[in-house]
Protein backbone atom coordinates (compact mmCIF):
# COMPACT_ATOMS: atom_id res chain seq x y z
CA UNK A 1 0.00 0.00 0.00
CA UNK A 2 1.35 3.41 -0.88
CA UNK A 3 1.71 6.08 1.74
CA UNK A 4 0.12 9.51 1.11
CA UNK A 5 3.60 10.83 0.30
CA UNK A 6 3.94 8.27 -2.49
CA UNK A 7 0.59 9.17 -3.98
CA UNK A 8 0.93 12.91 -4.44
CA UNK A 9 -1.82 13.09 -6.99
CA UNK A 10 -4.33 10.94 -5.20
CA UNK A 11 -7.74 12.43 -4.52
CA UNK A 12 -8.12 13.76 -1.03
CA UNK A 13 -10.04 11.32 1.11
CA UNK A 14 -13.63 12.26 1.70
CA UNK A 15 -16.45 10.49 3.47
CA UNK A 16 -19.92 10.49 2.04
CA UNK A 17 -23.05 10.58 4.14
CA UNK A 18 -23.83 6.88 3.57
CA UNK A 19 -20.26 6.00 4.49
CA UNK A 20 -20.57 8.01 7.67
CA UNK A 21 -23.75 6.11 8.53
CA UNK A 22 -22.15 2.80 7.68
CA UNK A 23 -19.23 3.55 9.97
CA UNK A 24 -21.54 4.70 12.78
CA UNK A 25 -23.66 1.57 12.51
CA UNK A 26 -20.60 -0.66 12.59
CA UNK A 27 -19.02 1.22 15.49
CA UNK A 28 -22.28 1.17 17.44
CA UNK A 29 -22.72 -2.54 16.87
CA UNK A 30 -19.18 -3.22 18.03
CA UNK A 31 -18.79 -0.85 20.96
CA UNK A 32 -22.24 0.45 21.92
CA UNK A 33 -21.04 4.02 21.33
CA UNK A 34 -23.51 6.00 19.21
CA UNK A 35 -22.83 9.30 17.45
CA UNK A 36 -25.64 11.73 16.84
CA UNK A 37 -26.13 13.43 13.47
CA UNK A 38 -24.54 16.57 14.82
CA UNK A 39 -21.28 14.70 15.32
CA UNK A 40 -20.68 14.05 11.62
CA UNK A 41 -18.01 16.69 11.16
CA UNK A 42 -16.25 15.62 14.34
CA UNK A 43 -16.25 11.95 13.37
CA UNK A 44 -15.37 12.46 9.69
CA UNK A 45 -12.33 14.55 10.46
CA UNK A 46 -10.88 11.95 12.78
CA UNK A 47 -11.85 9.10 10.52
CA UNK A 48 -10.10 10.70 7.54
CA UNK A 49 -7.04 11.13 9.68
CA UNK A 50 -7.09 7.43 10.57
CA UNK A 51 -7.64 6.37 6.96
CA UNK A 52 -4.61 8.36 5.89
CA UNK A 53 -2.43 7.10 8.71
CA UNK A 54 -3.41 3.50 8.01
CA UNK A 55 -2.39 3.86 4.38
CA UNK A 56 -5.79 2.87 3.04
CA UNK A 57 -6.73 4.47 -0.28
CA UNK A 58 -10.28 5.28 0.69
CA UNK A 59 -13.03 4.64 3.20
CA UNK A 60 -14.11 1.42 1.53
CA UNK A 61 -10.78 -0.35 1.89
CA UNK A 62 -10.27 1.10 5.35
CA UNK A 63 -13.67 -0.22 6.43
CA UNK A 64 -13.06 -3.68 5.07
CA UNK A 65 -9.75 -3.67 6.97
CA UNK A 66 -11.61 -2.77 10.17
CA UNK A 67 -13.94 -5.71 9.80
CA UNK A 68 -11.09 -8.19 9.75
CA UNK A 69 -10.54 -10.04 12.96
CA UNK A 70 -7.01 -8.82 13.50
CA UNK A 71 -7.90 -5.16 13.29
CA UNK A 72 -7.70 -4.60 17.03
CA UNK A 73 -4.90 -2.05 16.80
CA UNK A 74 -6.92 0.10 14.45
CA UNK A 75 -10.04 -0.24 16.59
CA UNK A 76 -7.95 0.88 19.53
CA UNK A 77 -6.88 4.02 17.64
CA UNK A 78 -10.50 4.78 16.81
CA UNK A 79 -11.73 4.30 20.32
CA UNK A 80 -8.93 6.51 21.61
CA UNK A 81 -10.03 9.19 19.18
CA UNK A 82 -13.63 9.01 20.24
CA UNK A 83 -13.39 8.59 23.98
CA UNK A 84 -11.78 10.76 26.58
CA UNK A 85 -9.07 8.89 28.34
CA UNK A 86 -7.36 10.72 31.08
CA UNK A 87 -6.78 9.36 34.51
CA UNK A 88 -7.15 11.37 37.68
CA UNK A 89 -8.35 10.94 41.24
CA UNK A 90 -12.09 10.52 41.68
CA UNK A 91 -12.69 9.99 37.99
CA UNK A 92 -16.22 8.61 37.46
CA UNK A 93 -16.77 9.12 41.18
CA UNK A 94 -20.44 8.08 40.91
CA UNK A 95 -19.26 4.50 40.88
CA UNK A 96 -17.42 5.00 44.15
CA UNK A 97 -20.57 6.53 45.53
CA UNK A 98 -22.39 3.41 44.31
CA UNK A 99 -19.78 1.25 45.99
CA UNK A 100 -20.33 2.90 49.35
CA UNK A 101 -24.08 3.41 49.22
CA UNK A 102 -25.27 0.53 47.09
CA UNK A 103 -22.81 -2.32 46.72
CA UNK A 104 -21.13 -2.52 50.11
CA UNK A 105 -24.33 -2.39 52.18
CA UNK A 106 -25.57 -5.39 50.21
CA UNK A 107 -22.32 -7.26 50.51
CA UNK A 108 -21.94 -6.81 54.25
CA UNK A 109 -25.55 -7.68 54.99
CA UNK A 110 -24.58 -11.30 55.51
CA UNK A 111 -21.02 -10.79 56.64
CA UNK A 112 -19.61 -10.69 60.16
CA UNK A 113 -17.59 -7.75 61.37
CA UNK A 114 -13.90 -8.19 60.75
CA UNK A 115 -14.40 -10.25 57.65
CA UNK A 116 -12.55 -9.44 54.50
CA UNK A 117 -13.90 -7.48 51.57
CA UNK A 118 -11.80 -7.88 48.46
CA UNK A 119 -11.77 -5.23 45.76
CA UNK A 120 -9.77 -5.55 42.55
CA UNK A 121 -9.06 -2.76 40.11
CA UNK A 122 -7.64 -3.67 36.77
CA UNK A 123 -6.14 -2.06 34.82
CA UNK A 124 -4.88 0.24 37.56
CA UNK A 125 -2.50 2.27 35.39
CA UNK A 126 -0.61 4.74 37.53
CA UNK A 127 -2.77 4.04 40.57
CA UNK A 128 -5.27 6.89 40.67
CA UNK A 129 -8.19 4.50 40.64
CA UNK A 130 -7.25 2.10 43.46
CA UNK A 131 -6.00 4.97 45.61
CA UNK A 132 -9.24 6.83 44.91
CA UNK A 133 -11.17 3.85 46.18
CA UNK A 134 -9.09 3.78 49.34
CA UNK A 135 -9.59 7.49 49.90
CA UNK A 136 -13.26 7.42 49.10
CA UNK A 137 -13.91 4.54 51.46
CA UNK A 138 -12.03 6.20 54.27
CA UNK A 139 -13.86 9.46 53.74
CA UNK A 140 -17.36 8.17 53.02
CA UNK A 141 -17.95 4.65 54.28
CA UNK A 142 -18.98 4.70 57.90
CA UNK A 143 -18.27 1.01 58.31
CA UNK A 144 -14.79 1.10 56.81
CA UNK A 145 -13.23 0.14 60.13
CA UNK A 146 -15.62 -2.76 60.68
CA UNK A 147 -14.25 -4.85 57.87
CA UNK A 148 -10.89 -5.79 56.48
CA UNK A 149 -10.85 -4.10 53.09
CA UNK A 150 -8.31 -5.49 50.70
CA UNK A 151 -7.58 -3.50 47.57
CA UNK A 152 -5.60 -5.22 44.84
CA UNK A 153 -4.57 -3.25 41.78
CA UNK A 154 -3.17 -4.83 38.62
CA UNK A 155 -1.84 -3.85 35.24
CA UNK A 156 0.09 -5.48 32.42
CA UNK A 157 2.59 -2.63 32.30
CA UNK A 158 5.28 -2.76 34.99
CA UNK A 159 6.36 0.83 34.48
CA UNK A 160 2.96 2.19 35.44
CA UNK A 161 2.89 -0.17 38.38
CA UNK A 162 6.18 1.23 39.63
CA UNK A 163 4.82 4.74 39.28
CA UNK A 164 1.68 3.68 41.13
CA UNK A 165 3.69 2.26 44.00
CA UNK A 166 5.66 5.49 44.24
CA UNK A 167 2.36 7.34 44.50
CA UNK A 168 3.52 10.73 43.22
CA UNK A 169 1.09 12.83 41.21
CA UNK A 170 0.89 16.26 39.68
CA UNK A 171 -1.76 18.85 40.37
CA UNK A 172 -3.84 17.86 37.36
CA UNK A 173 -4.41 14.41 38.80
CA UNK A 174 -5.80 15.94 41.95
CA UNK A 175 -8.17 18.47 40.43
CA UNK A 176 -11.29 16.69 41.66
CA UNK A 177 -10.08 16.44 45.21
CA UNK A 178 -10.87 19.08 47.80
CA UNK A 179 -7.98 21.03 49.23
CA UNK A 180 -8.71 19.48 52.57
CA UNK A 181 -8.35 15.99 51.16
CA UNK A 182 -5.08 16.89 49.47
CA UNK A 183 -3.76 18.43 52.64
CA UNK A 184 -4.59 15.39 54.71
CA UNK A 185 -3.51 12.62 52.37
CA UNK A 186 -0.68 14.06 50.26
CA UNK A 187 2.74 15.48 50.97
CA UNK A 188 4.75 17.75 48.71
CA UNK A 189 7.24 15.84 46.59
CA UNK A 190 9.54 17.96 44.46
CA UNK A 191 8.49 21.17 42.70
CA UNK A 192 5.26 19.92 41.14
CA UNK A 193 4.58 16.63 42.85
CA UNK A 194 2.29 15.40 45.54
CA UNK A 195 2.92 12.06 47.15
CA UNK A 196 0.29 10.00 48.89
CA UNK A 197 0.99 9.36 52.55
CA UNK A 198 2.37 5.98 53.51
CA UNK A 199 -0.83 4.71 55.05
CA UNK A 200 -2.68 5.03 51.75
CA UNK A 201 0.14 3.73 49.61
CA UNK A 202 0.34 0.68 51.79
CA UNK A 203 -3.37 0.01 51.63
CA UNK A 204 -3.16 -1.09 48.01
CA UNK A 205 -1.32 -4.14 46.73
CA UNK A 206 -0.03 -3.79 43.18
CA UNK A 207 0.57 -6.78 40.92
CA UNK A 208 1.38 -7.35 37.29
CA UNK A 209 -1.02 -9.44 35.26
CA UNK A 210 -2.11 -9.93 31.66
CA UNK A 211 -5.90 -9.97 31.56
CA UNK A 212 -6.03 -12.53 28.78
CA UNK A 213 -3.71 -14.99 30.54
CA UNK A 214 -6.23 -17.46 31.90
CA UNK A 215 -3.74 -19.19 34.18
CA UNK A 216 -2.52 -15.95 35.73
CA UNK A 217 -6.05 -14.65 36.18
CA UNK A 218 -6.90 -17.77 38.21
CA UNK A 219 -4.73 -16.38 40.96
CA UNK A 220 -7.40 -13.74 41.59
CA UNK A 221 -10.45 -15.14 43.28
CA UNK A 222 -12.95 -14.76 46.10
CA UNK A 223 -13.40 -11.23 44.83
CA UNK A 224 -16.28 -9.06 45.97
CA UNK A 225 -15.97 -6.12 43.60
CA UNK A 226 -14.03 -5.66 40.38
CA UNK A 227 -13.43 -2.28 38.76
CA UNK A 228 -12.50 -2.77 35.14
CA UNK A 229 -12.93 0.58 33.52
CA UNK A 230 -11.91 1.49 30.01
CA UNK A 231 -9.97 -1.63 29.17
CA UNK A 232 -12.43 -4.11 27.70
CA UNK A 233 -13.61 -1.65 25.09
CA UNK A 234 -10.20 -1.92 23.42
CA UNK A 235 -10.10 -5.69 23.29
CA UNK A 236 -11.26 -7.83 20.39
CA UNK A 237 -14.23 -10.12 20.90
CA UNK A 238 -12.26 -13.15 21.91
CA UNK A 239 -10.10 -11.33 24.45
CA UNK A 240 -13.08 -9.49 25.89
CA UNK A 241 -15.01 -12.68 26.43
CA UNK A 242 -11.98 -14.47 27.82
CA UNK A 243 -11.30 -11.70 30.32
CA UNK A 244 -14.92 -11.41 31.41
CA UNK A 245 -15.05 -15.15 31.95
CA UNK A 246 -11.98 -14.90 34.17
CA UNK A 247 -13.69 -12.12 36.09
CA UNK A 248 -16.79 -14.26 36.46
CA UNK A 249 -14.77 -17.15 37.80
CA UNK A 250 -12.86 -14.85 40.15
CA UNK A 251 -15.91 -13.24 41.69
CA UNK A 252 -17.84 -14.71 44.57
CA UNK A 253 -21.53 -15.37 44.04
CA UNK A 254 -23.23 -12.03 44.42
CA UNK A 255 -20.03 -10.17 43.58
CA UNK A 256 -20.09 -7.01 41.46
CA UNK A 257 -18.24 -5.68 38.47
CA UNK A 258 -18.11 -2.04 37.35
CA UNK A 259 -17.19 -1.06 33.80
CA UNK A 260 -16.35 2.34 32.33
CA UNK A 261 -19.28 4.65 31.65
CA UNK A 262 -19.13 4.13 27.89
CA UNK A 263 -18.79 0.37 28.20
CA UNK A 264 -21.44 -2.30 28.44
CA UNK A 265 -21.68 -6.03 28.97
CA UNK A 266 -24.20 -6.02 26.13
CA UNK A 267 -21.31 -6.21 23.71
CA UNK A 268 -19.49 -8.91 25.62
CA UNK A 269 -21.30 -11.51 27.64
CA UNK A 270 -24.56 -12.71 29.15
CA UNK A 271 -22.91 -13.97 32.32
CA UNK A 272 -23.81 -10.99 34.49
CA UNK A 273 -27.10 -9.49 35.66
CA UNK A 274 -27.73 -5.78 35.37
CA UNK A 275 -28.07 -3.98 38.71
CA UNK A 276 -29.38 -0.48 38.72
CA UNK A 277 -28.48 1.64 41.75
CA UNK A 278 -29.38 5.33 42.07
CA UNK A 279 -25.72 6.24 41.55
CA UNK A 280 -24.76 3.88 38.74
CA UNK A 281 -25.50 0.76 36.74
CA UNK A 282 -23.24 -2.14 37.65
CA UNK A 283 -23.24 -5.88 37.01
CA UNK A 284 -23.61 -8.76 39.40
CA UNK A 285 -22.68 -12.41 39.38
CA UNK A 286 -25.91 -13.82 40.63
CA UNK A 287 -26.31 -17.36 41.78
CA UNK A 288 -29.00 -18.83 39.60
CA UNK A 289 -32.41 -17.34 38.79
CA UNK A 290 -33.68 -14.76 41.30
Amino acid at each position, binding site marked *: MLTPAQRPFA*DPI*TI*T*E*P*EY*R*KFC*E*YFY*RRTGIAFGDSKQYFVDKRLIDRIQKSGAA*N*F*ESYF*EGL*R*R*RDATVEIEHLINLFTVNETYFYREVDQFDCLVNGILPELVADRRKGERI*RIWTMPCSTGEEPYSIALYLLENWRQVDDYEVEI*IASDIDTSVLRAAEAGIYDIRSLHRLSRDLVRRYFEPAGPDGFQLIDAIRQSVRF*TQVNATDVGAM*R*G*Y*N*NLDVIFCRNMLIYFD*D*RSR*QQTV*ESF*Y*DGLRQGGFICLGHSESMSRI*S*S*LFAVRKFPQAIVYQKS*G*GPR
Partner: protein
Amino acid sequence: MPLIRDDRPDPETVSSLPREALFDQLAGADIGKRRLAALALSGDRNAAPALAASLETELEPGVRDALFRSLVMIGGTPAAKLVQRLLRSADAGLRGGAVEALKRLGVEAVPVLDILLDDPDSDVRLLAIEVTRAWPSALAMPRLLHIIEQDPHANVCGAAVDVATEVGTGDLLPALAGLRVRFVNDPFLVFAIGVASSRIDGDSGRRGA
Protein backbone atom coordinates in the same frame (compact mmCIF):
# COMPACT_ATOMS: atom_id res chain seq x y z
CA MET B 1 1.36 -19.00 43.08
CA PRO B 2 -2.16 -17.86 43.91
CA LEU B 3 -2.44 -14.51 45.69
CA ILE B 4 -5.49 -15.44 47.58
CA ARG B 5 -6.77 -18.59 49.14
CA ASP B 6 -9.19 -20.20 46.75
CA ASP B 7 -12.32 -21.75 48.19
CA ARG B 8 -13.60 -23.16 44.96
CA PRO B 9 -12.93 -26.57 43.39
CA ASP B 10 -9.43 -26.39 41.99
CA PRO B 11 -9.37 -26.09 38.19
CA GLU B 12 -5.98 -27.83 38.06
CA THR B 13 -7.39 -30.84 39.86
CA VAL B 14 -10.51 -30.85 37.75
CA SER B 15 -8.70 -30.65 34.43
CA SER B 16 -6.52 -33.60 35.32
CA LEU B 17 -9.55 -35.83 35.80
CA PRO B 18 -10.12 -38.48 33.16
CA ARG B 19 -12.77 -37.79 30.54
CA GLU B 20 -15.36 -40.13 32.06
CA ALA B 21 -15.08 -38.41 35.41
CA LEU B 22 -15.49 -35.05 33.72
CA PHE B 23 -18.61 -36.27 31.95
CA ASP B 24 -20.00 -37.32 35.32
CA GLN B 25 -19.24 -33.89 36.72
CA LEU B 26 -20.86 -32.32 33.67
CA ALA B 27 -24.11 -34.06 34.59
CA GLY B 28 -23.81 -33.40 38.33
CA ALA B 29 -25.77 -31.14 40.62
CA ASP B 30 -23.05 -28.58 41.37
CA ILE B 31 -23.15 -25.59 39.02
CA GLY B 32 -19.55 -24.59 39.67
CA LYS B 33 -18.30 -28.09 38.98
CA ARG B 34 -20.35 -28.37 35.79
CA ARG B 35 -18.79 -25.17 34.54
CA LEU B 36 -15.29 -26.32 35.43
CA ALA B 37 -15.86 -29.68 33.79
CA ALA B 38 -17.11 -27.96 30.62
CA LEU B 39 -14.04 -25.75 30.54
CA ALA B 40 -11.71 -28.65 31.26
CA LEU B 41 -13.04 -30.55 28.23
CA SER B 42 -12.17 -27.74 25.85
CA GLY B 43 -9.04 -29.36 24.43
CA ASP B 44 -10.73 -32.69 23.89
CA ARG B 45 -12.13 -33.30 20.42
CA ASN B 46 -13.80 -36.51 21.53
CA ALA B 47 -15.75 -34.59 24.14
CA ALA B 48 -17.53 -32.44 21.58
CA PRO B 49 -20.65 -34.62 21.27
CA ALA B 50 -21.04 -34.70 25.06
CA LEU B 51 -20.61 -30.94 25.31
CA ALA B 52 -23.23 -30.37 22.62
CA ALA B 53 -25.60 -32.83 24.28
CA SER B 54 -25.23 -31.02 27.61
CA LEU B 55 -26.25 -27.77 25.97
CA GLU B 56 -29.62 -29.23 25.11
CA THR B 57 -30.51 -29.53 28.79
CA GLU B 58 -28.30 -27.00 30.60
CA LEU B 59 -30.12 -23.93 31.92
CA GLU B 60 -27.37 -22.14 33.87
CA PRO B 61 -25.89 -19.22 31.89
CA GLY B 62 -22.40 -19.77 33.34
CA VAL B 63 -22.35 -23.42 32.29
CA ARG B 64 -23.91 -22.76 28.86
CA ASP B 65 -21.25 -20.16 28.28
CA ALA B 66 -18.50 -22.65 29.15
CA LEU B 67 -20.01 -25.35 26.93
CA PHE B 68 -20.16 -23.07 23.89
CA ARG B 69 -16.69 -21.78 24.61
CA SER B 70 -15.21 -25.26 24.76
CA LEU B 71 -16.90 -26.27 21.53
CA VAL B 72 -15.44 -23.20 19.85
CA MET B 73 -11.99 -23.98 21.28
CA ILE B 74 -12.21 -27.54 19.94
CA GLY B 75 -13.09 -25.97 16.62
CA GLY B 76 -13.30 -27.62 13.24
CA THR B 77 -16.18 -28.58 11.01
CA PRO B 78 -17.32 -31.44 13.30
CA ALA B 79 -17.81 -28.96 16.14
CA ALA B 80 -19.72 -26.66 13.79
CA LYS B 81 -21.96 -29.58 12.82
CA LEU B 82 -22.79 -30.19 16.46
CA VAL B 83 -23.41 -26.53 17.24
CA GLN B 84 -25.68 -25.93 14.25
CA ARG B 85 -28.25 -28.34 15.66
CA LEU B 86 -29.01 -25.79 18.35
CA LEU B 87 -30.27 -23.34 15.74
CA ARG B 88 -33.47 -25.38 15.82
CA SER B 89 -33.82 -25.25 19.60
CA ALA B 90 -37.03 -23.95 21.13
CA ASP B 91 -34.83 -21.96 23.52
CA ALA B 92 -34.04 -18.52 22.06
CA GLY B 93 -30.94 -18.24 24.23
CA LEU B 94 -29.52 -21.46 22.80
CA ARG B 95 -30.26 -20.35 19.25
CA GLY B 96 -28.46 -17.06 19.91
CA GLY B 97 -25.52 -18.82 21.55
CA ALA B 98 -25.26 -21.13 18.55
CA VAL B 99 -25.16 -18.18 16.13
CA GLU B 100 -22.37 -16.53 18.11
CA ALA B 101 -20.42 -19.80 18.37
CA LEU B 102 -20.74 -20.41 14.63
CA LYS B 103 -19.42 -16.89 14.01
CA ARG B 104 -16.42 -17.61 16.19
CA LEU B 105 -15.72 -20.92 14.46
CA GLY B 106 -14.79 -18.89 11.40
CA VAL B 107 -14.00 -20.48 8.05
CA GLU B 108 -14.29 -24.00 9.43
CA ALA B 109 -18.01 -23.43 9.78
CA VAL B 110 -18.48 -22.40 6.14
CA PRO B 111 -19.41 -25.84 4.76
CA VAL B 112 -21.95 -26.26 7.53
CA LEU B 113 -23.46 -22.83 6.91
CA ASP B 114 -23.74 -23.45 3.21
CA ILE B 115 -26.00 -26.39 3.94
CA LEU B 116 -28.04 -24.37 6.43
CA LEU B 117 -28.60 -21.59 3.91
CA ASP B 118 -30.68 -24.07 1.91
CA ASP B 119 -32.53 -25.48 4.91
CA PRO B 120 -36.29 -25.93 4.43
CA ASP B 121 -36.92 -24.05 7.68
CA SER B 122 -36.90 -20.28 7.01
CA ASP B 123 -35.96 -19.47 10.61
CA VAL B 124 -32.84 -21.62 10.29
CA ARG B 125 -31.86 -19.85 7.07
CA LEU B 126 -32.45 -16.50 8.80
CA LEU B 127 -30.11 -17.36 11.66
CA ALA B 128 -27.55 -18.81 9.26
CA ILE B 129 -27.31 -15.64 7.21
CA GLU B 130 -26.53 -13.67 10.38
CA VAL B 131 -23.39 -15.80 10.83
CA THR B 132 -21.99 -14.43 7.56
CA ARG B 133 -21.74 -10.99 9.13
CA ALA B 134 -18.59 -12.19 10.85
CA TRP B 135 -16.98 -13.22 7.55
CA PRO B 136 -14.78 -11.15 5.22
CA SER B 137 -16.74 -9.62 2.35
CA ALA B 138 -15.28 -12.04 -0.18
CA LEU B 139 -16.64 -15.01 1.75
CA ALA B 140 -19.98 -13.50 2.70
CA MET B 141 -20.93 -11.98 -0.66
CA PRO B 142 -21.71 -15.15 -2.65
CA ARG B 143 -23.93 -16.37 0.18
CA LEU B 144 -25.77 -13.05 0.41
CA LEU B 145 -26.19 -13.08 -3.33
CA HIS B 146 -27.59 -16.58 -3.21
CA ILE B 147 -30.25 -15.62 -0.66
CA ILE B 148 -31.12 -12.24 -2.17
CA GLU B 149 -31.55 -13.72 -5.63
CA GLN B 150 -33.73 -16.66 -4.80
CA ASP B 151 -34.92 -17.04 -1.22
CA PRO B 152 -38.73 -16.96 -1.19
CA HIS B 153 -39.10 -15.75 2.41
CA ALA B 154 -39.31 -12.05 3.27
CA ASN B 155 -37.65 -12.34 6.70
CA VAL B 156 -34.74 -14.37 5.36
CA CYS B 157 -34.18 -11.80 2.62
CA GLY B 158 -34.50 -9.07 5.25
CA ALA B 159 -31.73 -10.66 7.28
CA ALA B 160 -29.52 -10.85 4.19
CA VAL B 161 -30.23 -7.21 3.39
CA ASP B 162 -29.25 -6.21 6.91
CA VAL B 163 -25.92 -8.04 6.65
CA ALA B 164 -25.45 -6.52 3.18
CA THR B 165 -25.75 -3.07 4.73
CA GLU B 166 -22.49 -3.72 6.53
CA VAL B 167 -20.73 -6.24 4.32
CA GLY B 168 -22.08 -5.73 0.81
CA THR B 169 -20.20 -4.48 -2.23
CA GLY B 170 -21.35 -3.04 -5.55
CA ASP B 171 -21.88 -6.50 -7.04
CA LEU B 172 -24.97 -6.84 -4.89
CA LEU B 173 -26.76 -3.81 -6.33
CA PRO B 174 -28.42 -5.55 -9.27
CA ALA B 175 -29.61 -8.37 -7.01
CA LEU B 176 -30.99 -5.86 -4.53
CA ALA B 177 -32.85 -4.13 -7.33
CA GLY B 178 -34.32 -7.50 -8.32
CA LEU B 179 -35.33 -8.17 -4.72
CA ARG B 180 -37.13 -4.86 -4.64
CA VAL B 181 -39.21 -5.98 -7.59
CA ARG B 182 -39.94 -9.36 -6.03
CA PHE B 183 -41.12 -7.80 -2.80
CA VAL B 184 -42.54 -4.54 -4.10
CA ASN B 185 -45.52 -4.86 -1.77
CA ASP B 186 -43.48 -5.34 1.39
CA PRO B 187 -42.82 -1.89 2.90
CA PHE B 188 -40.15 -3.20 5.26
CA LEU B 189 -38.12 -4.86 2.53
CA VAL B 190 -38.47 -1.92 0.20
CA PHE B 191 -37.19 0.35 2.94
CA ALA B 192 -34.39 -2.03 3.94
CA ILE B 193 -33.22 -2.43 0.34
CA GLY B 194 -33.10 1.34 0.04
CA VAL B 195 -30.86 1.58 3.09
CA ALA B 196 -28.55 -1.22 1.95
CA SER B 197 -28.25 0.18 -1.56
CA SER B 198 -27.42 3.59 -0.22
CA ARG B 199 -24.72 2.21 2.08
CA ILE B 200 -23.18 0.22 -0.76
CA ASP B 201 -23.57 2.96 -3.35
CA GLY B 202 -21.96 5.45 -1.02
CA ASP B 203 -18.63 3.73 -1.71
CA SER B 204 -18.98 2.84 -5.37
CA GLY B 205 -20.49 6.16 -6.30
CA ARG B 206 -17.03 7.63 -6.09
CA ARG B 207 -14.99 4.89 -7.67
CA GLY B 208 -15.56 6.15 -11.17
CA ALA B 209 -14.33 9.69 -10.31
